């Protein structure tokens, strides 16, 4: 296949889809499948055949719509009617009323308008809209046109300049400017050069990257291809969590299809670009999110970080210049090239362009996957989009940024979400997890939960992280058993700061964040535990009451 053929495929597919008056999109992502989405897809296919509307209505499987709490979700186009908690009986009603009679079934619709309206879906533009297994669907929605543009009109340097103009920063957590990273690697000596796409979403409570891979794998592939062209790399690895079978399967199929059409492989679309993509499975190591650890893991070793410099941009995978990029960042790339860097830079907040995907979970009315412009406030996310806290309970804290993020109190709800503001408040962007915690949770218990996680996930290479975190865990144990002393507050604070300052990698440096932020914003709760021996949420002082841990 050659460059011009992309346009042809798009035209044929658009014509094909135009022949249908309606399109029923059945969400078949990891959230909806446990709720019976696959059977539902078949039900719809049978129903349109049974009622003789198969020529009028296209039934497609799609990725995540985002309203995971009301799955299985079905969207009818045109008009984007979102139906919630669809059962086979409801499916029959939808087909008869909406498809045959043209009357949307109002009482079955997902009615939360703000959930949709407050979002700005760029990365998730195709999620819930296209069939991830059909490359034609992606191409018809404008897919691979950015790649064609790069290969025909732009030099690698111009691609990097466009990304620089967009102000795109890495979505993996640290927020490093993408264009800067790319130009380091493009200028670095040594070949071959490599790209690693990080899909090892180790943060518990986060599923944005998985959803992206399940819903729109070709956006990721296109992003990789453009990155490869810009920096002169011919090989990319997608490092995926092994616990994401559907994402792996979707990606494999997408890679095979793209190879078949010569979109990846030798002489991509008849040009001189060669590019190969390989999937590598992680095996359950949180620390593999750190860039030097991910390199070790792709090389087949333990995922243990090493000191930097040398940075991966100069000496990465097998000692060669390597770009390591989060998949969300990569999915932004085609859009930026399509619409221009200036367009992208206007979205979001001034020093933080674009959008960010967040998994909003915990004690919240509308848990799910959202994409919002940078700079939106936590209040808008929790209350407008998330629908507030269930059972009329009050919000106690918001955990932002995963297990090494921070617990922020309700007084900080008007904090704009961007890398700098979150950092000042003691949290991190991380991979985009927002967990709402209500007054039924004890924050001492919650902080210990995260420390437990980091103790288990510490690779053991550097002492502050390996030993320090265990010490913190022991102090928490003591507090929760009623053995704590008021001096423990100071000790925790000192120890946490020490670990933050002296650990080798990001895991150790951020692991004490939940402790530091709970100490900063919820000191009273520590005092209650230490002085009054009381736990308002009734989580502590239970089974081990009176037991002397010494």
């Amino acid at each position: 296949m050659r460059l011009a053929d992309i346009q042809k495929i798009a035209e044929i597919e658009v014509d094909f889809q135009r022949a249908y008056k309606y399109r029923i999109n059945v969400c078949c992502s990891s959230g909806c499948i446990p709720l019976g989405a696959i059977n539902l897809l078949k039900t719809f296919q049978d129903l349109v055949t049974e009622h003789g509307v198969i020529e009028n209505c296209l039934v497609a499987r799609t990725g995540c719509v985002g309203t995971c709490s009301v799955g299985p979700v079905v969207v009818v186009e045109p008009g984007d009617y979102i139906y919630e908690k669809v059962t086979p009986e409801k499916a029959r009603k939808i087909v008869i009323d909406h498809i045959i009679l043209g009357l949307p079934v109002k009482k079955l619709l997902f009615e939360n308008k703000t959930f949709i309206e407050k979002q700005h879906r760029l990365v998730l533009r195709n999620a819930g809209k296209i069939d991830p297994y059909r490359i034609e669907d992606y191409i018809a929605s404008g897919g691979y046109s950015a790649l064609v543009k790069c290969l025909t009109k732009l030099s690698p340097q111009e691609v990097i300049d466009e990304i620089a103009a967009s102000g795109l920063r890495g979505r993996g957590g640290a927020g490093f400017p993408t264009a800067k990273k790319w130009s380091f690697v493009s200028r670095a000596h040594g070949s071959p050069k490599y790209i690693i796409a990080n899909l090892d979403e180790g943060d518990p409570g986060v599923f944005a990257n998985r959803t992206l891979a399940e819903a729109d794998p070709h956006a990721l592939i296109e992003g990789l291809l453009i990155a490869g062209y810009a920096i002169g790399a011919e090989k990319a690895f997608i490092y995926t969590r092994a616990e994401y079978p559907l994402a792996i399967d979707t990606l494999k199929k997408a890679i095979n299809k793209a190879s078949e059409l010569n979109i990846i492989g030798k002489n991509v679309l008849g040009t001189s670009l060669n590019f190969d993509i390989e999937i590598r499975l992680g095996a359950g190591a949180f620390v593999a999110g750190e860039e030097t650890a991910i390199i070790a893991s792709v090389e087949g070793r333990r995922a243990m970080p090493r000191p930097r410099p040398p940075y991966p941009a100069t000496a990465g995978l097998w000692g060669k210049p390597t770009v390591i990029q989060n998949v969300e960042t990569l999915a932004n790339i085609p859009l930026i090239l399509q619409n221009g860097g200036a367009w992208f830079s206007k979205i979001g907040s001034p020093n933080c362009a674009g959008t960010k995907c967040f998994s909003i979970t915990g004690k919240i009315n509308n848990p799910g996957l959202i994409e919002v412009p940078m700079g939106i406030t936590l209040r808008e996310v929790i209350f407008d989009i998330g629908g507030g806290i269930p059972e009329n309970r009050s919000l106690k804290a918001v955990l932002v940024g995963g297990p090494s993020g921070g617990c922020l109190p309700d007084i900080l709800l008007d904090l704009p979400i961007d890398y700098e503001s979150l950092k000042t408040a003691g949290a991190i962007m991380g991979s985009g997890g927002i967990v709402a915690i209500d007054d039924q949770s004890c924050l001492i218990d919650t902080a210990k939960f995260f420390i437990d996680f980091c103790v288990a996930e510490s690779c053991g290479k550097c002492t502050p992280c390996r030993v320090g975190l265990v010490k913190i865990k022991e102090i928490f144990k003591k507090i929760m058993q009623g053995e704590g002393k008021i001096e423990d507050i100071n000790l925790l604070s000192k120890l946490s700061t020490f670990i933050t300052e002296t650990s080798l990698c990001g895991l150790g440096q951020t692991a004490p964040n939940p402790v530091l932020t709970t100490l900063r914003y919820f000191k009273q709760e520590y005092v209650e535990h230490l002085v009054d021996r009381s736990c308002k949420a009734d989580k502590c002082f239970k089974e081990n009451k009176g037991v002397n841990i010494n």
Partner: protein
Amino acid sequence: MDTKKNLRSSSQSILLSPKKKDNSAVNLGLKNDKRLLKLENFMRKMNYKGCALLEILHKAQEIYGYINKNVLAYIAEAIELPASHVFGVATFYSYFKQQQPGKHVITACLGTACYVKGVEEIICAIEKNFSVKRGGSSDDGKLSLFITRCIGACAIGPAIIIDDDIIGNVTEDLVLEKITSILEREKIETC
């Protein structure tokens, strides 16, 4: 790279001919059955490269359900890496299991969202009711209870996987009932 080179040279002494490999399989107590052949074929496909170790371990676990020491030793010989290195990698990653799981496997998600929604209490209830500890199996080998860090089903948390089926929004009663019925069915079938 350097470490890798060192590992290679230090393992030169255990270079084996294909024939010797067969013997080692017998010595290691591995039956020369189809499973071993499958593993061997996969390693050949990977050119017995050390950098494919994670892929090979994934394959081994897919074939055997877990990876015991003998299989690890076999892999180490085949890809010419010290057994200590292979063992180190296999035990570093929590996804690789070193013990045979029970006939039925319960995997509880202990991600943040599920934790906040009370999965810990459900895990404790399973432990208590079926005499099984997290990470281990029941004495009769019928049931294993594993903990995983987030399966990404956060919106429908707490989530528990029972024999490959993800069950969302679980309650203590629901899980206990499901497990009981699975074990009862098992009993009837064996009778």
